[in-house]
């Protein structure tokens, strides 16, 4: 049985890395239950990664199952092991580089904000920048910082500003930056010709929806939508648009859809439970069904 372990794990890894993200990114239900969808994405990524590493490791280690392995077999298995180690190393390196880059840039941001931002009674606890364009953002970290430009502060009504600030605070509270950093590291770890932005774009969108939900609970749908309209008005500098991400128009339409289908949303608990169950199964089942017998077999062979 254990000879099939690497094949099963590799197949699983390929399915989880290719078709599964493509399907999930096109599904419509995640926008209704973004939290559950985000958990599913995370478990999908974790499971794909564990399967891939498990496939390599089991293929590499299986050489102990033979009584007298030939040189070719030994070389083959050793290469599988080496490849696995390379993948793992690339992943760790990518996480390290991205972490350093982000931390450096955020430190610089915090420093600059300390030097030039002021406080304003209209938005307590917020760093206000006297800049030319309406803008609001959060510098992730502990504690995270909210930055708003003075045109944004002037343009937005009180409830719209409440929506903006609640949106940004939700990002800070839930450490969405860490979620995105994880997917970013995973994305950067793979060579350009095999990777896709699907997971990173989808999770970025879900994170925005989660923050939007926090904002609409505090301030209401229309103030949130108006804030989106006002702050999205600034024309993009050339080449600065992120492709494929959730657009402001889509975020507003989501609010409308949510309102119109509120009564039909009774299936939300079902969808949510299914998503969480799938997420748990993705991580647990391969581990138990495939890896455990293999571990036992290797242990017995030793």
């Amino acid at each position, binding site marked *: 049985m254990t000879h099939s372990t690497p094949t099963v794990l590799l197949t699983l890894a390929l399915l989880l890395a290719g078709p599964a993200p493509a399907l999930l990114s096109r599904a419509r239900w995640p926008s209704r239950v973004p939290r559950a969808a985000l958990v599913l994405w995370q478990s999908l990524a974790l499971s794909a990664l564990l399967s891939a590493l498990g496939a390599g490791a089991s293929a590499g280690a299986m050489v102990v199952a033979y009584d007298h392995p030939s040189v070719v077999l030994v070389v083959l298995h050793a290469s599988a092991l080496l490849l696995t180690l390379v993948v793992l190393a690339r992943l760790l390196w990518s996480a390290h580089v991205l972490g350093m880059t982000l931390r450096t840039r955020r430190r610089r941001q915090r420093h600059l904000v*300390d030097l030039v931002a002021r406080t304003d009674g209209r938005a307590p606890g917020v760093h206000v920048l006297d800049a030319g364009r309406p803008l609001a953002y959060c510098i992730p970290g502990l504690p995270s910082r909210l930055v708003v430009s003075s045109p944004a502060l002037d343009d937005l*009504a009180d409830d719209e500003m409440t929506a903006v600030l609640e949106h940004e605070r939700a990002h800070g509270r839930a450490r969405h930056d860490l979620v995105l950093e994880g997917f970013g590291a995973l994305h*950067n770890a793979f060579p350009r010709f095999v990777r896709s932005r699907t997971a990173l774009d989808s999770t970025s969108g879900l994170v925005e929806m989660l923050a939007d939900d926090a904002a609409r609970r505090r301030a*209401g749908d229309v103030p949130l939508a108006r804030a989106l309209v006002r702050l*999205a008005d600034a024309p993009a500098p050339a080449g600065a648009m992120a492709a494929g991400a959730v657009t402001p128009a889509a975020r507003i339409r989501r609010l409308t859809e949510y309102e119109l289908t509120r009564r039909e949303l009774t299936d939300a608990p079902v969808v949510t439970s299914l998503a969480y169950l799938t997420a748990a199964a993705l991580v647990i089942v391969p581990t138990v069904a495939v890896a455990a017998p293999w571990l036992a077999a290797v242990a017995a062979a030793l």
Partner: protein
Amino acid sequence: MVGRTRLGELERVIMDQLWTLDSPATVRQVHEALSDSRDVAYTTVMTVLDRLARKGSVEQIRDGRAYRYRPAVSRDELTAELMHQALDTVDGSDRMAALLRFVGSASADDADAIRAALAELENGRPEQSPGRAESDRTDGTAGSPP
């Protein structure tokens, strides 16, 4: 010890001070200017100026046996750098944003789509804003179909 937040605040106050001065200032001058408004130790001022110099925000000029300090950049330049970073026009590591913006900038096409989406939301449900009176909008006709 001085806490990090307080150091950050002192950095700002000291930069403000340097920006208002015409010529490079000594630690003593900065300290004297500050001591009118706040209780801060001479050595703290020195530390903060040193930090600012290491971060490239002030320039250290040797003047005999002492140092003089002047801003390396103007306030406007710093603000411009902030905006530049925040608007994502610099992004080395595969477009992974360091900051979480409330909303990205829209292209001209998007701007129309956004306004249409807002109109749809407002028409669908004219009464909004839990516990809040709409101040800037009076065209809320009840339940008119889109």
